[in-house]
């Protein structure tokens, strides 16, 4: 009964989404207030039914209803309860349900937090969201329904969730990732609404910015969680492989970053409007491309969900309709009139434009590398397949990021419209020299060796940090006290600086860990040890442990630091009953400045075991930097200018006049 209810909810949601796709848009075109105002209740309805549908699927999982095929394929009676719940999104159909639930949530959020929005813009935005929602719901109902049942041949038990997914990472990574991925649909909808209504101006940019920032922040966290998960789960100490599924999550993020910056320019100066709209369309298009690649089997990946060309065709058609029509609309309706605002070569506008060009080129490079095997095969045939992996991507991507880091420093000091080169030199030359000096001194002194990669990374990271400090000094120079000056700076300013700081932290994390990691695979008898630097890893032995749905060999490794007892690591090798799969669970001690990583290999005939030991300095900074960026993005949203205007009246009651709509006197 419950699965049927879930299915029915999906159908209802689809009907409502189709209505939301048509009626408010028609209302906007014909200026029908009633039709336009239906958008909000429709979005609430869709959200309610999607929640219900999700709840039904979760119920089926939690109650071991193996008559539902999806539950039988992804669950097991012995599966721990938290993984029964998160198993809802452990496979293709269920993760699609999560996707659409999140899409419905974003639509609902737009309807809630849009009191400042003119009704016709809101109507168009929600209609676009409705088009996308109904498209995905049709896709689900027609090809990927999670509620399909086998009532006649109900299996006695499920096939269990893939052991790799029975992990905390599954609980957090997909929800955050989808919040980001799907969240770019809001910016996309705003862009389409702007093109349709012809109203593409600074106000439009201001409406769009918080939604874009939110989606971008979520995506930053989602990607970081995925990377961190791969790091501790797969056991080889790597955290980014340029796998197609990683790339298709990363590309919307890169374009999203460009979009955030482009929106800033459009809001402040009214220029680059066409670029901004195009970026908004591109960001969500890349999200759709990602959904396609992960679910169609076109590219080989360990992470791919379904290898089903038929589903791929439907997704491709969806992409053609959504992206094709939006790009066509863009070509017809994007503004071509040259803006009257002017800017010089070293102005903030141009710096941001260069920033965006670098990000777009980086995205293009990632896209090129990801689909090139297809292109090459189309031209040269399948006998000459090429593989494109980290050697290519790192070679192209890292220099671009280095260039970006350099431009970042200059850009944050530049002024709108015009910044004289002399001014820049006067501000930044000393900072640059200091960065180079520190960048060389710090690594050489602390490690005693000369490592070019580490030095370049340190120079760039220090450069960003020092330019942040320099700019804050500049901005508080004319205030009565520095402290007052700091308090006067807006939240969105702090958001920007924290996000940029996050970037420099990531640069350090990525480069230092790749340059200074030590990895050893050793064979040890109980009692023997291996030393890396100040740490001595003593292997004590292996015991057998029972888990809820697995049996494990658990090793004990005592770690001594400078000869003193420090901590104990317990790597495991698990044998899962249902899938009969063997899985290594690494034991990691996470530290701010280093990770200590051990994993258990095979037992040798003489009682010794093969053990992997990693020393990974600064790897935590990678995730920390990503979280800083996300935090900066969220902080920027809380800035006063995005909140509804509240006017304090001298009467005892405070009246909220935000609904008057007029935002005259908005200082940019």
């Amino acid at each position, binding site marked *: 009964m419950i699965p049927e209810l879930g299915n029915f909810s999906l159908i209802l949601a689809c009907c409502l989404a189709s209505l939301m796709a048509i009626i408010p848009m028609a209302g906007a075109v014909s200026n029908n207030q009633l039709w336009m105002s239906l958008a909000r209740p429709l979005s609430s309805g869709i959200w309610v039914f999607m929640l219900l549908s999700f709840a039904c699927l979760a119920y089926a999982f939690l109650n071991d209803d193996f008559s539902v095929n999806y539950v039988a394929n992804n669950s097991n009676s012995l599966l721990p309860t938290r993984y029964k719940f998160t198993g809802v999104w452990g496979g293709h159909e269920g993760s699609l349900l999560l996707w659409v639930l999140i899409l419905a949530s974003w639509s609902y959020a737009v309807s809630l937090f849009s009191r400042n929005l003119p009704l016709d813009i809101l109507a168009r935005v929600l209609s676009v969201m409705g088009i996308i929602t109904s498209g995905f719901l049709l896709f689900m109902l027609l090809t990927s329904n999670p509620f399909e049942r086998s009532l006649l041949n109900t299996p006695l038990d499920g096939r269990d969730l893939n052991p790799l997914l029975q992990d905390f990472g599954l609980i957090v990574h997909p929800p955050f990732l989808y919040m980001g991925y799907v969240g770019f649909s809001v910016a996309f909808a705003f862009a389409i609404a702007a093109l349709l209504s012809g109203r593409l101006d600074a106000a439009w940019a201001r409406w769009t910015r918080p939604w874009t920032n939110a989606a971008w922040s979520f995506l930053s966290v989602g990607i970081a969680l995925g990377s961190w998960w791969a790091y501790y789960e797969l056991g080889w100490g790597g955290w980014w492989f340029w796998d197609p599924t990683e790339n298709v999550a990363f590309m919307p993020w890169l374009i999203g970053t460009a979009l955030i910056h482009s929106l800033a320019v459009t809001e402040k100066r009214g220029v680059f409007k066409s670029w901004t709209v195009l970026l908004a369309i591109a960001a969500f298009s890349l999200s759709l491309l990602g959904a396609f690649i992960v679910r169609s089997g076109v590219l080989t990946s360990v992470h791919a969900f379904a290898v089903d060309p038929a589903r791929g065709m439907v997704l491709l058609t969806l992409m053609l309709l959504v992206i094709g029509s939006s790009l066509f609309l863009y070509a017809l309706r994007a503004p071509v009139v040259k803006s009257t605002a002017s800017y*010089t070569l070293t102005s903030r506008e141009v710096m941001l434009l260069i920033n965006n060009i670098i990000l*777009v080129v980086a995205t293009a490079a990632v896209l090129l590398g990801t689909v090139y095997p297809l292109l090459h095969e189309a031209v040269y045939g399948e006998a000459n397949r090429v593989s494109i992996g980290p050697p290519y991507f790192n070679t192209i991507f890292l220099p671009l990021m280095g260039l970006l880091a350099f431009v970042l420093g200059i850009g944050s000091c530049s002024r709108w419209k015009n910044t004289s080169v002399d001014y820049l030199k006067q501000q930044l030359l000393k900072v640059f020299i200091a960065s180079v000096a520190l960048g060389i001194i710090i690594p050489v002194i602390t490690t005693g060796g000369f490592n070019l990669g580490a030095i370049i990374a340190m120079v760039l990271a220090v450069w960003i940090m020092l330019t942040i400090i320099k700019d804050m000094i500049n901005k508080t120079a004319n205030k009565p006290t520095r402290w007052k000056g700091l308090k006067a700076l807006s939240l969105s300013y702090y958001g920007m600086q924290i996000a940029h700081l996050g970037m420099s932290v990531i640069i350090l994390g990525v480069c230092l860990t790749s340059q200074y990691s030590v990895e050893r695979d050793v064979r040890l008898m109980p009692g023997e040890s291996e030393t890396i630097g100040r740490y001595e890893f003593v292997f004590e032995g292996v015991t057998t442990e029972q888990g809820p749905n697995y049996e494990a060999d658990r090793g004990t490794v005592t770690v001594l630091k400078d000869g003193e007892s420090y901590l104990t690591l317990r790597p495991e090798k698990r044998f899962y009953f249902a899938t009969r799969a063997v899985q290594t669970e690494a034991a990691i001690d996470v530290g701010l400045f280093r990770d200590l990583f051990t994993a258990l290999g095979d037992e040798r005939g003489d009682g010794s075991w093969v053990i992997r030991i990693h020393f990974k300095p600064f790897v935590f900074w990678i995730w920390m930097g990503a979280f800083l960026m996300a935090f900066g993005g969220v902080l920027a949203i809380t800035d006063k200018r995005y909140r509804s205007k509240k006017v304090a009246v001298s009467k005892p009651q405070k009246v909220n006049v935000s609904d008057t709509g007029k935002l005259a006197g908005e200082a940019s």
Partner: protein
Amino acid sequence: MARLALFMIFTVLCMNNLQAAIEVYQFDSPDQEERFHQLSDQLRCPMCLNSNLSGSDAPIAADLRAEIYEQIIDGRTNDEIIDFMTQRYGDFINYRPPLNRGTVLLWFGPLLLLLAGLLVVWRMVRSNQSADQALALTAEQQQKLEKILTGKK
């Protein structure tokens, strides 16, 4: 249908080869060990779903790592080892695509795009400045107009 079933079994088996392989090799020098890791990272596991040799515990990956080890100890260079592998498994096994007619676009495309982008910026700023100058003239005229207007009041 059997083929599909077989393929899916194959796939599931491959999925479980995701985890790192941990084995012990003795090297004559740290440099050799470094080369071993670098080559194992650069070469692709022929039967896995996008994994390098160091990140897979598939039997063939283990065999190929053993082969790399032997060849390093034997004194072969990195290029020779990669040639050995690509002769047998094709360019497919090398995660670093070769630079040839078929991959020129791949290797130089991004750089060309970057230069094109910077050129576009240059042209935008230039045309913007000349438009600005055209406006400046009318700004003078605007001033004249204002004088007239304020004069009249």
